[in-house]
């Protein structure tokens, strides 16, 4: 217990940015658009969140700013993928490069600056539950929002009309189109919303987690989120599990370093990446045996109505 609680707490804290990014990507991919630009979007989100919080003194405005920046990047991605029918993989790579570069130019004056950021806000009663309390209910409010988002998305996908239309668009755009659902509008909207959520994940890093800005501070978390979407089979609750698992590995690794282990730091730092590969491998091997349904069938494919065979 003594060791478990701090690791769990740290897992939730450091898993939250990945969780937001994974949830955002799930929303995007459900509509059939693959956005590999998470890394870039998170970085610009982290920058925007930090810069707005710094200049206004209000971290929530920072989060809102990050969401808006994410929406704009999502708009660019959907313009290229939906309207211009461009290659979604390449557009995502371009987004990553652009976001990495732009955030490092924009953030060059903020390096070394700290902000107050979001405070911890233990929830009365809930935070007193042994183990669960400190692990889940003694965090900042943005983390509590992520719990809400997970629950909301689970409900949204299965029980609402818009969620149904979104899934239809990702699974069979031709059919959705024939049933009077606007494929383009749906894809634009959810790509933007999804990118906004991803950017909030970035903002959590700078506004709540580290409370500072550093160049390339996401260090591959965007890519881990892309892998986690597959791990989660596009299900928000499993995404939470996966994100905390990764947060846990990271926390464990840091703790081990701090404890002065003989294992060299670079080797420990490989862990999250190696684990991503292992997870992906595990999922893919199971999928190969035909157990898993749930991936949007038209993921990554542009839709063009007047094309005839």
């Amino acid at each position, binding site marked *: 217990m003594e060791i478990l609680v701090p690791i769990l707490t740290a897992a939730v804290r450091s898993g939250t940015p990945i969780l937001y990014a994974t949830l955002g990507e799930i929303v995007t991919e459900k509509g059939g658009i693959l956005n*590999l630009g998470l890394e*870039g979007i998170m970085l610009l989100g982290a920058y925007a969140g930090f810069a707005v919080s710094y200049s206004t003194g209000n971290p929530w405005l920072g989060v809102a700013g990050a969401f808006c920046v994410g929406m704009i990047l999502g708009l*660019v991605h959907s313009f*290229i993928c939906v309207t*211009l*029918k*461009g*290659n979604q*993989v*390449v*557009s995502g*790579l*371009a*987004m*990553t*490069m*652009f*976001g*990495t*570069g*732009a955030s*490092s*130019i*924009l953030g*060059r004056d903020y390096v070394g600056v700290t902000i107050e950021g979001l405070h911890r806000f233990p929830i009365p009663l809930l935070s007193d539950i042994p183990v669960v309390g400190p692990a889940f209910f003694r965090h900042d409010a943005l983390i509590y929002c992520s719990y809400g988002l997970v629950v909301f998305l689970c409900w949204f996908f299965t029980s609402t009309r818009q969620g149904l239309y979104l899934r239809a668009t990702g699974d069979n755009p031709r059919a959705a189109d024939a049933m009077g659902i606007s494929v383009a509008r749906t894809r634009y909207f959810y790509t933007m919303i999804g990118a906004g959520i991803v950017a909030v994940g970035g903002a959590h890093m700078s506004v709540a987690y580290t409370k500072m800005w550093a*160049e*390339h501070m996401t260090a*591959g978390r965007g*890519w*881990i989120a*892309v*892998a986690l979407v*597959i791990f989660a089979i596009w299900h928000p609750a499993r995404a939470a599990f996966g994100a905390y698992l990764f947060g846990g590995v990271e926390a464990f690794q840091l703790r081990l370093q701090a404890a002065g282990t003989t294992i*060299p*730091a*670079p*080797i420990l*730092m*490989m862990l999250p*990446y*190696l684990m*991503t*590969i292992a997870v*992906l*491998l595990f999922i*893919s*091997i199971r*999928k*190969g045996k035909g157990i898993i349904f749930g991936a949007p069938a038209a993921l990554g494919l542009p839709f063009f109505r*007047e*094309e005839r065979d």
Partner: protein
Amino acid sequence: MRLSLKVEPRLETSRLLGLMIPVLSLVSALAMGAVFLHFMGVSPAKAYSTIVRASLGDAYGISETIVKAIPLTMVAIAVMLAFTMLIWNIGCEGQIFMGAIAAAAAVRYCFVDNRLVMFAIMFVLSGIAGGVWAAIAGFFRAKWNVNEIITTLMLNYVAINFFNYFIYGPWRDPTSLGFPMTPLFPDTARLTCYCGTRVHAGLILALLLPLVFWVVLRFTRWGYEIRVMGENPKAAGFAGMSYVKNVVLVMFISGAIAGVAGMCELSGLQGRLQAGFSGGYGYTAIIVAWLARLHPVGIILVSFLLGVLLVGSETLQIVMRLPVSSMLVLQGLILFFVLGGEFFRKFRIRIVTGGGHRASPEALKEGE
């Protein structure tokens, strides 16, 4: 009368259009980049003129551009080969690092005081290291359909940490005053440099590889197989081609080229492993391959062009105090605009006047 835009697929793309589109994409990207730089508080005129002056202004600048173009060309060929088969090798960065580690290991553990033999060993080892690194992702992809974009990328991070392990740990130069770097290579393990510049013998490989792969893809049976598999994997299976075997093979060769590029960079230029060894060549090469439309010879040209940007960005870092990664903005924009340009290659837009086809007031209301 009502005007509307109509998008139609093009049946053929003219040669002129085929050449104009990348050029226009590049120009638009630079224009857009200027706007961005302006809003980010950087004078675009100053930035661009600094870039051009630094990279093309004198013989030294040009030689430096060539120095950058060497690894870019090689890695872009690696990327191109995988992309031709529609395999996304985003992991060239890691493969470069692995190649360099292997070359350094060769120098450290099986040093031979004969330049030719030494190079043969370094060449083979770095090729195998990079190749195996890429083939892991290729094998997973072929066998269990594991998304190779993510595995190659994750392997980048692993490779870089692996590299860091050596330079911070067992291979660190005891005389480096704590800097993370290995000792300088002996001369026998260094590639020849020409004309007193830093242009090294890797240039020969960089010019040779595109030609070799042009011939391979156009004129050999294997090249034909690769192209069919990239265009239509189902048809490839139908024709009896082994997708699984070739994915692994192509990834191995692709990774091997990137590994050798890492070796050239190491032994031709830097002479030791040190932090920040490859400045993102693995990623920039993706742009090169796309801009050149996967054409091996086009890759040489585009590599030089992006070499200009890279040399420029290093100067910008010194002159205008911009972070190294700031040139990624331009690279990202170029990629965006190249993608946009693809649209005009594949589709044509016609302005249609609505003759005879009248719309009811109701429909007009619906339509906005």
